[in-house]
């Protein structure tokens, strides 16, 4: 059986599980059966995808099914890019299923989630497998609608309803843009299969318009600024395992859509395409992480951090486009490998972090940081695994986040060779923005881990928390282990990306698994190299030497006592730092004069016994200046168009007559 057929069988099995979930929704075994079978299917699919990527490097396998439109059918195909993203999707799906085996038991209304979850996974798999525009868009919509249903699972909360509405509007906008993009690329002859689009010749104007449309369509789904506004609303509203999939996996499917259409189908891009991506990527990186620092809700913070990481991925893709347009293929391969490696890494640690926040939510019933604290004592395993996720996302060696950032920086260092002046000015600026975003991400995750897990509990729920079940912990442990392994041995993953970069930019990085001591080398010309394994071993060895020396030479005495606190100990846990207090210096440095932050202090007049109050409002300036005016404009237009409801019969006949005359005129002029 061909590999495509195998994946299609897995997808069919997932759809079958969804149907089963509808039938046996009220049964108490439903959760275990649905997630258990989902787990098995995802594990099989990911193993198959990894196998395709590493072993089979021959021509891609194709399958055509007699479904859908009669004269097109439905085409499905696996090449190296599809295999890579199938691995990402299915590993994320497997972890989510494993996690949900434990987490899903807390769900009050499982029948609102169980049917849609396997359908969501199936939709994502099918988008990656699709080989013609029609099945692509159909499955894109399936993915969006299934995730919308999951966002609306807890529909009693008005916040969630609003999030669902915004999500639906943005998803429709995205799908419309993608539809128009495919239409432009298919051309007047209308060959919708990817094979036809790939081999067609596209005039430069069409390519440019298609680029902008795909940026809107795929970028809005990925969370690129300024189309990101739905992400921090929708991702936290869904249940935690679904949030992990949406942030960790669905955004990557959007990246896949972008790579497939722009790098593969649309042919040669203009030289300024890189600039567009670099500008939006850099803006997303910095704006995402600054907003993340201002959040109090753990899940909203993680959603904004996803926006930041998508910005980093698009910076890598932008560099790849710029290098490719100027014929610097080795550098393009480096930039593309950096972006794809970040796709791989981010899906792991973001899922891990969302699982951790779900565990906290399940244990305490809260997700606002300012009422948590001290959870490291109550939930030791969860806090350790969450710490690994925080370290990975802050790009600390020797974990995997550092490797993809290091590769992106190396790609930036190759950029002075680019001849265009605009690129020469933009790339250093974007490099500075990337460095700033990386440093701020470290601050954001020190805040998250420190306020939530360390210190003293700030509420009764935090004081009474308990460790979560084995399934949730094992899902988190698997992801944490993957973060460590892909940080220590990144060479193997980079080698697996070689067929992708060879196919799309015509070059690949030097073979990494043959490097001495398994270092990674970005290019043969530069002398830079990094060895995660050695760095890890050195740190462990130094720590052990320190432990031995201390054990041998120092006193062993240890005494527990109340905290020192400079002699002013305060029993109230509210005297410790809150999340917004921790972020205040950074808020003052970076956001003091923007419209995003509003601090107001109300002091009662002297003699009044009321407390002074401090209120902090954080808004998204893009929402106020882009979305709100657009929405208001639509409202105004709708009001005006409403008058069409109340015309007389004569006027309606007049409209029909006018339309007919216009059509005849068009026919007369353009035939």
């Amino acid at each position, binding site marked *: 059986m061909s590999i495509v057929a195998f994946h299609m069988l897995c997808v069919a099995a997932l759809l079958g599980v969804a149907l089963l979930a509808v039938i046996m929704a009220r049964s108490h075994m439903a959760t275990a059966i649905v997630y258990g079978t989902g787990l098995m299917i995802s594990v099989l699919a990911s193993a198959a995808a990894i196998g395709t990527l590493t072993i089979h490097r021959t021509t891609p396998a194709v399958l055509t099914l007699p479904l859908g439109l009669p004269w097109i059918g439905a085409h499905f195909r696996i090449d190296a890019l599809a295999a890579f993203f199938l691995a990402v999707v299915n590993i994320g799906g497997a972890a989510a299923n494993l996690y949900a085996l434990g987490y899903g038991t807390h769900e009050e209304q499982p029948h609102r989630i169980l049917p849609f979850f396997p359908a969501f996974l199936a939709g994502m798999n099918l988008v990656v497998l699709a080989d013609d525009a029609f099945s692509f868009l159909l499955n894109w919509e399936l993915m969006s609608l299934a995730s919308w249903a999951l966002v609306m699972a807890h529909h009693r909360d008005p916040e969630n309803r609003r999030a669902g509405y915004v999500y639906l509007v943005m998803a429709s906008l995205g799908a419309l843009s993608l539809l128009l993009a495919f239409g432009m690329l298919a051309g007047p002859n209308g060959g919708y299969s990817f094979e036809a689009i790939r081999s067609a010749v596209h005039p430069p104007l069409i390519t440019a318009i298609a680029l902008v449309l795909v940026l809107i369509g795929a970028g809005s789904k990925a969370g690129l600024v300024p189309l990101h506004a739905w992400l921090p609303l929708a991702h936290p509203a869904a249940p935690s395992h679904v949030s992990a999939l949406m942030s960790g996996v669905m955004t990557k499917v959007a990246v896949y859509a972008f790579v497939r259409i722009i790098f593969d189908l649309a042919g040669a891009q203009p030289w300024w395409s890189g600039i567009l991506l670099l500008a939006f990527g850099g803006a997303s990186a910095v704006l995402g992480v600054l907003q993340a620092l201002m959040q109090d809700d753990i899940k909203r913070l993680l959603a904004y951090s996803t926006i930041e990481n998508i910005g980093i991925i698009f910076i890598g893709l932008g560099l790849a486009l710029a290098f490719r347009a100027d014929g610097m293929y080795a550098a393009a391969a480096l930039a593309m490998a950096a972006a794809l490696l970040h796709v791989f890494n981010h899906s792991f640690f973001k899922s891990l972090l969302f699982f951790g926040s779900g565990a906290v939510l399940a244990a305490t019933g809260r997700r606002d940081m300012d009422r948590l604290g001290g959870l*490291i*004592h109550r939930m030791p395993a969860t806090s350790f695994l969450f710490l690994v996720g925080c*370290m990975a996302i*802050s790009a*600390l060696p020797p974990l995997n986040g*550092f490797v993809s950032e*290091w590769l992106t*920086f190396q790609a930036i*260092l190759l*950029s*002075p060779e680019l001849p265009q002046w605009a690129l020469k*000015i933009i790339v250093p*600026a974007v490099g*500075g923005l990337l*460095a*700033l975003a*990386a*440093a701020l991400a*470290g*601050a954001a995750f*020190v805040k998250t*881990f*420190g*306020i939530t897990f*360390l*210190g*003293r509990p700030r509420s009764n729920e935090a004081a009474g928390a308990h460790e979560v079940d084995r399934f949730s912990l094992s899902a988190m442990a698997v992801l944490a282990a993957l973060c460590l392994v892909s940080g220590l041995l990144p060479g193997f993953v980079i080698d697996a990306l070689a067929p992708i970069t060879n196919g799309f930019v015509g070059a690949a990085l030097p073979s990494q698994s043959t490097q001495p001591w398994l*270092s990674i080398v970005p290019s043969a*010309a*530069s*002398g*830079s*190299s*990094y*060895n995660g394994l*050695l*760095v890890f071993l*050195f740190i*462990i060895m*130094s*720590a052990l030497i*320190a*432990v031995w020396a*201390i054990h041998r030479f*120092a*006193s062993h*005495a240890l005494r*527990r*006592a109340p*905290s*020192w606190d400079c002699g002013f100990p*305060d029993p109230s*846990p509210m*005297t*410790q*730092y809150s999340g917004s207090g*921790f972020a205040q*210096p*950074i808020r003052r*440095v970076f956001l003091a004069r923007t419209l995003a932050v509003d601090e107001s202090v109300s002091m009662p007049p002297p003699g009044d016994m009321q407390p002074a109050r401090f209120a902090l409002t954080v808004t998204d300036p893009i929402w106020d200046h882009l979305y709100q005016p657009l929405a208001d404009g639509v409202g105004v237009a709708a009001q005006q168009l409403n008058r069409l409801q109340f015309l007389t019969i004569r006027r309606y006949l007049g409209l029909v007559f006018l339309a007919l005359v216009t059509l005849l005129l068009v026919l007369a002029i353009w035939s």
Partner: protein
Amino acid sequence: MELISSLLVQIMQMMLVLLAAPLLTGFVRKVKARLQRHQGPSVIQPYRDLLRLLKKEVVVAENASWIFRTAPYLVFAATWVAAALVPTFAKGLLFSWSADLITIMAMLGSARFFLALAGMDIGTAFGGIGSSREMMIASLAEPAMLLIVFTMALVAHSTQLSAVAELFSSPAVGLRVSLGLAMVGLIVVAIAENGRIPVDNPATHLELTMVHEAMVLEYSGRHLAMIELAASVKLLLYISLIGCIFVPWTLTEPGASATSYFTGFILYLAKLAAFGFLLGIFETSITKMRVFRLPDFVGAALMLGLLGTLLLFVSGSL
């Protein structure tokens, strides 16, 4: 034979870094004291302090977690490994290819991450002050350092520190504007990262003026000894870095004779003394800044790094 001599050099560098760091701290304190017209503590006082701390009992808060107890080891290990990879008296360290400048800076970043978490562990307000201020300074100093690394890497065509030192000690690189900017920026970042005046006063007793000291307020005994030693090693690392990049001619070539290694070692001690002296003078002649003036100071380093990178992108000869 070459392998063994390289290995010996690397091990000697690791021990040197550890043993010379408290001496450097003591020397800077002595210079500052003399400039302020008092005797000051002896130059070897830091060694005595460390030994005294090692022998003391550790007092740990009741609600401290495992992070509080393991952070000193992790901070020390990360800083020591980073310092062992920066050439001090000899070029061509055996494992220099495993970690380049970006990795060294990221390792110092990991040390800072754990120290900030340790500051928040007990749940006191002072720990929070230290951690939040430290992360604010880091959010400007880290990108500044990265852009300075870019500037140097664009000139040297590699981020590997040994390649940078090699190229800068050859006559191929003259005086360049971007490197001048990088040097000024690196000095500002070194002051910010090591918590020296004007960014932070290492000798202050006023909690509201503390940044680094506030994070380690709850530490005592052997834990405090390791953190103090790590801080001294970090200062040594930055001074060695400035020395090996901007004054690289004293570094011994790999595979040279034992006497040239010895001369290299003496020259390195002289470099440390010279930079320590300059640091002492600088700290004595300037006051500590208000916390919210620090972004202007460290932001200036960020702008210098960005300007250096921009100049190199725009013209290869600047």
